[in-house]
């Protein structure tokens, strides 16, 4: 990770129109963003498009960004919102049953859309297990365990109560422990 001052310099240059400087920020944060969005959606085709769109929107909104704050939380919020919109708009059209069948299929066949990007076997299994979670549970788990958002932040993001976040997180953990009990 670069020093905060280095990231700030890139942001300042990008705000002044330097696409090269913004490219460095993209290169720096795209892996983490890809993990977030991938674990939220579980669909590779949409993941790459959403990541790209998030970076473009971030570049267009750089004038509104506070240079004294870290870049990732800000850009991840954009990506997360895009992912959630995608979930509401597209994934909800498929029944949860279908999604769970897909997740089970991943788990049974040992393949996931991003298998080529997961080197370690235990991580592949972990990914399959997370993607096998119901969307409501999976999103809360990813935001809490992988993005380290607080209950309150998750509740505000998903427009649900803190109690719902708490219960969904417990359900997600319980299921994952059950699915990954031989790895834990």
């Amino acid at each position, binding site marked *: 990770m670069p020093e905060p001052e280095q990231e700030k310099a890139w942001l300042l240059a990008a705000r002044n129109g330097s*696409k*090269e400087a*913004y*490219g460095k920020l*993209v*290169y720096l944060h*795209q*892996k*983490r963003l*890809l*993990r977030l969005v*991938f*674990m939220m959606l579980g669909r590779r085709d949409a993941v*790459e498009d959403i*990541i*790209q769109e998030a*970076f*473009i929107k971030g*570049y*267009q909104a750089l004038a509104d960004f506070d240079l004294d704050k870290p870049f990732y939380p800000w850009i991840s919020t954009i990506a997360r919102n895009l992912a959630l919109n995608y979930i509401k708009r597209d994934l909800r059209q498929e029944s949860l049953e279908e999604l769970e069948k897909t997740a089970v299929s991943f788990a049974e066949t040992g393949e996931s859309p*991003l298998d*080529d*990007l*997961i*080197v370690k076997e*235990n*991580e592949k299994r*972990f*990914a399959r297990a*997370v993607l096998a979670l119901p969307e409501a549970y999976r999103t809360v*788990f990813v935001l*809490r*365990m*992988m993005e380290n958002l607080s*209950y309150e932040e998750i509740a505000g993001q998903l427009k649900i109560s803190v109690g719902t976040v*708490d*219960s969904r*997180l*417990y359900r997600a*953990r*319980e299921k*994952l*422990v059950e699915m*990954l*009990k031989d*790895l*834990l």
Partner: protein
Amino acid sequence: MDLTDIKHRLSQYLDNRLPEPERRAIENLIRTDPVWKEEYRKMLALAAMADRFSLEADEKYWRERQQAVIDKIADDEAEKITEVTGPSYRGVFLKLAAVAASIVLVAFVSLYESRDIETTRGIFKAGETETTPLNNIALVPEAVSSIARDSASLEETAGLNNMPQDISTATAPADVRLAPIDEVKDRSALIPSELNQSESLSDEGVVITNREEIMKLTKLKNESATTKPVTAEIAPERMPLAEEIETPTLQDLKSAPTKEKAATKALAPKFEVMAEPKVAPAVIGRDSYYDSAREENTDDNLNEYFRWRLAADSLEARYFEIVSVHYSEAVAKSRRPAASSASTAKKQAMETSAESVEESRRPDISADSIQHMAHVFYQVGLLTGNSGETSAMRMRLERLAEIADSASADSLTILLQNLESPQK
């Protein structure tokens, strides 16, 4: 607590969401119960796995993703620039529309200015009033031709006369005064010199110092009238005013002789004072005409007419016993001694013979003054659109011709002929 509740508490304990008593209870349970200790360990392992999870790919993949983002940003910027600066059919259409509108406007103005003026003048038919709707306006051929003739006459007359803008203050270079009238650019060059020397006027009469100029103007006017006969006729709108500008009757003059005389003396020194027609006895009856005419007509020719008319009124007021054709012989004789003490003896001698009767009608006024007055009356007769006033001016010229010497009488005859020709 049942098992489900304990697992839920473990999840909350992991996120430090439990209050202090429950946290201590869970910590005690984990520390003392191997089952719950194992359950807690699995949750910690799951959290660690989630935290360690990452997507790995070769450098090429990440560079491609990075370049894709940069390329997309560049494409979007180029697209926006094209939208702003690129050719726009809307802009082209607006430009074409503006050009077309300009062409139409120019064409309209050109057509408007080149239209036949006679066909656009609205003349009311007989019996119609000014409240006649515009869509009912019809052109009366006779009235149109009359106005056109009247307009042409006024314009021509104005050009020939070269009247001064301000008769009391205008000055003219001496070398320009004798130039041919067509070559004179400044109309003030042809101002009668007496009008510029008004301060030299005295009770004895107008002092004319440049008689050649008067004769030159008269000659030029005569030539112009010959080649371009003046065809001024009474404009229809002026017809009702004709009766108002008749010369004062003898009864009028008799009714206020003292007042008239006092006003005449007061007016004598300067033309500026003479420019007050209300105090001149001969024009008292014309005030209403002047006022109404000024309000209704802003024609430059009419303004020129008014200037000459003021001069004529002043002279008429000053020499009313000379120019008034209605002034009786008795009145003239009764006033003549007061005009000049030097002529008293001469006048008394005139009364002794039959020839002296005719001589008694000739007041003490120089030939040049008669010429000057004649020119002023002539100008008024030319400029007025009122045949009645033209006749009045003609009668004054005849009166002046009667008292003028033979040389002046010749020039007055020419003026009379010019003034009569338009009436024919």
